[in-house]
Structures are given as C-alpha cells and as structure tokens.
C-alpha cells in the first residue's frame, strides 16, 4: 500500500514539474540583451569545424560579434531533419538575421523565409528569389581565371590538370574559368579535367583524388588545380611524391576555398580563395548599419569575394612578371574588359 502511494506521489511530482516548466521559460531567456541585434547561423551537416567552408563562415560571424554589438547564436544540425526547426527556432524568436551555410539548405530556407517576411535571411552559395533573403553567390570563375593564368605561365610542360569534386554546375564554373585563364596566356595549352565522383562522397575521397592527380601527371600535367574539398588533399600528396629539385618542386598543386598554401609548403603554387568569412562579416556589418538588402549579392574580384592567395609560402614560386600580368588581368576583369564565361549561366 505504501509502495503504491509513493509511486503515485513520484508520478504526480513529475507531472506537475513538467507542466510548470514551460511557464517559466520565457523569463529565462531575458538575459539575451534585447537592445542588440540578433544573428543566428545554421551550419551544414559538416559542422563548424570542417576547416573549410563552414569554418570560414564561423570565423566571419565570430569576427563580426567582436566588432559589433550583436548577439550571436549558432546551431550545428547534425542531421537533415534538424535544419528546418533550427532556422524556425531563430525566426520564431525574432532574430534579425538568419544565415544558412551551403546550397543544400536553400529549399528549406525558401519555405521558412516565406513564413517570416519580417526576418532577414541569407544563404551562402544558394539562390532564393524572395525579398527578405540575401543570396550570397561567388564568382568562382573570375578567381579561377587568375589562377589559370598563373598556372599556364608557370607550367613547363604545357599541360595542366583540373580535379573537381562532385560533377555539378558549380564546379564546372571553376573548370571553365581556369581553362579560359590558361588559354589566355597560352592558346595551345592542354587542360586535363577529371571529377572525383557524382555523389556527396566525392568531396571526401582523398584516395581517388591522389589517383586522378597521378594519372594527370603521367599524361604530362605539372600543375593541378583542385576544387574537390577534402578529396583535393590527395593531389597534394601526389605532387609531393615528385619531390624537389634544386629547392624547387617539380609538380605543383593549386588549393581552393581557403588559403591552403601552407598545407604542403613549396608544393602549393597558390590557392583560389573564396572569402566566405569576409562576406559574412560584411553582411552583419550591413545589418548593423541598417543597410541590409535581400536579393542577389554577387561577390567577385571587385568585391574581394574571390582571389588568389599570396604569402610567405609561395612568393618565391611565382615570378614578379607573372604577378604583374595577373594583376593587370584582374583590373581588366573588374573593369569588364575581360569577360570570363560563367558555366552556371545557360
């Protein structure tokens, strides 16, 4: 009998506590300063420490948090069903800006943004046609054009390699820009193109990346541009295998997205950088200044959204003459004198 009453009591206690808790949650959030602007960021499945795309976005918002009076919150969804409620969680609480990282989030953000017309949204690498969404798109073909020029001027064999990750239009954009840049320097240059695969796994297969790089080298390629995420690191291993002669590497690789010059010092000719961090920072800056606008935001050479990386690791690899030419071409692209083909425009 005593046992039964004890059990009932325990049950009742739990019931009461569960019923009471929602009532007091509203107060617990008040420590968030209401006078500040609120920014929420939803990462891709990779999470914020992927050393590449998500990490760059994270750096950008962290820097903005230091410089501006904002409240920053982030979610790493971990699985695809959590992305939508994470975005809604920020929107429900009246966040001023919700940032989605990666094209895979665009269909979800489109749904959510329609329900919250008063909340600003931003999607990186995706395109959503809504007035309250800023679509942040990079002109990868412009940056690729410049590294293509550097590669063509540095190549001794007249054969270049390109390794893409997943065979999708976004990556074709890198390939086309790279080829055009190379041909602008040397119309007879040959560019061998290969893709790691056609599924998401293509971003994370360094073994296949190395195989492709070795195959391209055996066909005479001496500079290989990778746009393949983690798979690209396989190409780094491949060029290292050919070693250095008189202190200069025999084969080079060109990095992508973030500055990868220091990954294998001496073997990385340059990196085609995509300044996701700058762009995210600028976005928050615009929000704070009250200048946030939806629609297309295109970041090319002019906006410093893409570019090539120069630092202590590669300054001796590229001749000053080449740099001068590349800088001239950069100015011409910015002026519109050189039009680089965008593979994503049909």
């Amino acid at each position, binding site marked *: 009998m*005593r*046992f*039964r009453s*004890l*059990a*009932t009591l*325990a*049950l009742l206690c*739990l019931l009461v506590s*569960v019923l009471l*808790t*929602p009532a*007091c*949650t*509203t107060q*617990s*959030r008040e420590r*968030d300063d209401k006078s500040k602007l609120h920014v*929420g960021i939803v990462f891709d*499945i990779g999470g914020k420490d992927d050393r590449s795309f998500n990490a760059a976005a994270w750096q950008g918002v962290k820097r903005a948090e230091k410089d501006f009076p904002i409240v920053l*919150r*982030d*979610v*790493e*969804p*971990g*699985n*695809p*069903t*959590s992305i*939508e*409620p*994470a975005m*809604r*969680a*920020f929107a*429900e609480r009246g966040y001023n800006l919700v940032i989605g990282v990666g*094209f*895979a989030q665009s*269909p979800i953000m489109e749904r959510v943004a329609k*329900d919250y017309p008063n909340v600003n949204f931003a999607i990186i690498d995706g395109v959503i046609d809504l007035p309250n969404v800023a679509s942040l798109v990079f002109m990868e073909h412009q940056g690729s054009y410049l590294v293509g020029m550097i590669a063509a001027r540095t190549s001794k064999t007249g054969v270049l390699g390109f390794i893409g990750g*997943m065979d*999708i*239009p*976004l990556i074709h954009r890198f390939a086309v820009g790279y080829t055009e840049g190379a041909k602008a320097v040397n119309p007879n240059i040959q560019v061998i193109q290969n893709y790691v695969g*056609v*599924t*998401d796994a293509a971003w994370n297969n360094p073994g296949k990346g190395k195989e492709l790089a070795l195959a391209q080298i055996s066909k005479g390629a001496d500079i290989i541009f990778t746009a393949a995420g983690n798979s690209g690191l396989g190409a780094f291993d491949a060029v290292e295998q050919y070693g250095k002669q008189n202190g200069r590497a025999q084969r080079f690789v060109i990095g992508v997205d973030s500055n990868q010059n220091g990954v294998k010092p001496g073997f990385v000719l340059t990196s085609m950088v995509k300044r996701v961090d700058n762009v995210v920072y600028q976005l928050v800056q615009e929000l704070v200044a009250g200048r946030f606008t939806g629609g297309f935001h295109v970041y090319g050479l002019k906006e410093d959204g893409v570019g090539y990386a120069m630092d202590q690791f590669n300054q001796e690899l590229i001749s000053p003459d080449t740099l001068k030419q590349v800088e001239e071409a950069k100015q011409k692209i910015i002026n519109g004198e050189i039009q680089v083909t965008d593979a994503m425009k049909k």
Partner: protein
Amino acid sequence: MKHLSELLFPLIAVIAAFIVGGIFVLIIGDDPILTYQLLIGSALSWPDGIGYTLFYATPLIFTGLAVAVAFRCGLLNIGTEGQLYVAAFAAAWISIKLGGTVVGGVNYSWASLPALALVPIACLVAILMGAFWAAIPGYLKARFGSHEVINTIMMNFIGIALVSYFTQYYYKTPGDPIMETAEIGVAAHIPRLGSFIPGIPTRLPLNVAFLLAILACVLVYIFLWKTKWGYEIRATGANPSAAEYGGIAVRKQIVLAMAVSGGLAGMVGINEVLGYRYRYYEGFSASYGFTGIAVALLGRNHPVGVFLAALLFGMLNRGGIFVDAFTDHVSKDLVEVLQAVVILFVACEAFFRGSFNRFSLLRRSKV
C-alpha cells in the same frame, strides 16, 4: 498496480538520466535548471514545440514498434534503418511513376493517378517493401539458422547503398547538386494536420502519418495480444522449443514477425516522403532505426510504452536544437548523452527493482 510499476521504472531511469545530465551541464559551465527549462519548454510550447515533438516522435513510434514486434518473437531486428530507407525510396518511386512527375520537360512517370488511389498504393508499397527487406533475414534465420543480428546489419548496408545508387543515376533531376529524387506527384502528398484541424498552423510538418502511428500502436496491440498469430509469435519468443512442441510452426512465425516488423519500419517512409519532403532525400533518417531500438527498450516492447518513449525522444530531439542554439556552452550532444544515460539506466533496471523491493520490504517489516 502492475501497470503502474511498469511505468515507474522507466520513469526513474529518465529522472536519473536528467540528474546525471544536469551534472554534465554544470561541469560544462551552464545552469542546469535553465538548460532543462529551455529543453522541455521549447519541446512543449504550443503550437510549434508540441507540433515538432510529435513530428519527431512519429518515425520513432514506427521503428520502436518494429523492434518491439520482432523482440516479442525473440528476434533482434537491427535492420530497421535499412528497411525504412528502401521503403521510403519505394514510396517515392511509385509516387513518381504513378503521380505524373514531369521535371524540365522530362517525363518520369507512367501514369497520373488521383490521390484516392495513389496515396493508398504508395503507403502499401512502402509497407510491403519494408516487410520484404526484413523478411529476407527472417527467412535466412528460419531456413538456415543464420543469425538475424548479423544479417539485418548487412542488409542495412545493401539497402542504403542500393537506393543511393538508384537516386544518383536514375531519379535525380539533372543538374541538382542535392542527392534527392525528383518531386513526387502532388496527388501522393498526404495532408498536414494543420490543413484540416483548426488551431494547428500549416507550417508544422506534422501530418496524417502521426495518426497512422497511433493507429499502428493500437493495431500492434490487437495483433500481438488478441489474435492467434500474435499469440504464436509471443509463444515462439518466450520459448521456441515449447512453442514447437505445442504445435506452432516456429519457422513461419520468425518470417512473419520479421515481415510485420519491417512493414512497420517501412511506414517511416510515409511520414518522410509522402508527408514532409515530397521526395526521397539521401540521408533523411536521423538514425531513426537505431533510436527505435532504444525506444523499444525504454517502452518495454509494449505499444503504449513505445508511444510514450517515442514522445520523450521526440521531445529531446526538438529541445536539443534549442539547447544547442540558446545556451552559451552546452551543445546538441547533451541530448545524446541524455538518451544514452536513459538507456543505460533502463538496462540496469534489475538493480533498481531489486533495491526498491528491498526498500519496500524493509518498510513493511517495520510496520
């Protein structure tokens, strides 16, 4: 009294897990009370919290029931993950083929059926595909005695890789960077609860599949405890030799139990494909199949228990997002810690039960 104590021990496990989790939160450097208020408050707020909690619970009810049915027959079905993947793909496939899907001028479909015919067909295909995928290891167990744990795990790999192959090479719309099939026909969409129950916003993805999940709980109860087949399955699970001696075809029961289990797992596809995404999406399952094992364990392999346990796990899923977003240090992993500790405590239940009995015995002897 019997039912109450059945409820009590899982409850103690849950409370104990929350206390242990609270200690973790304290060590990480946040306030455990505030964190739990955030966790539970965001999961039970009306309407979004409750809506999402039920939405997350739906697939777990199906997989929990699936594991429970197999367990009642003495089988451990670890293959619910693979079963729900092939079923979800099959549901998407039939809804594309018979739903009149046309993308970019390419016609993917054979016919364009009305909703009244297409929805039941798609549901049935999902259930049958899941049942078929689970019946294979069931048959192997019955015919050759090969262990169902190994075989169901292996079938997971085969199933998930196969549907991924079909999605990539045959049913993805050209140029789509996301691994997903073309959209299914509009006629195959099942309505969200918000579209016909006033008071629920239509933005919530909670759909008719949740009602199907409740129905499945009732049907599984009737099947296991009120029918001859259920009796035979339970008898086989309790003691195969005795069951065989009693005239039950044990091998047939093994295949039947696995098929029913797989069919239930396959119903996850109805929720995901017909009710939420309207397409098959690679990697859609947040390991529902494996969480289903925990749900069945916590729910003591009973439909009512499974339902309650799935609600708890749904709450944790929902609240976990808020804990991740709105606390300073605690990340979503806290939810996984909580789930793991709950399971650990449920597994140690005998210990609790023993000490509890001793405790009440002591009290009684004093009186």
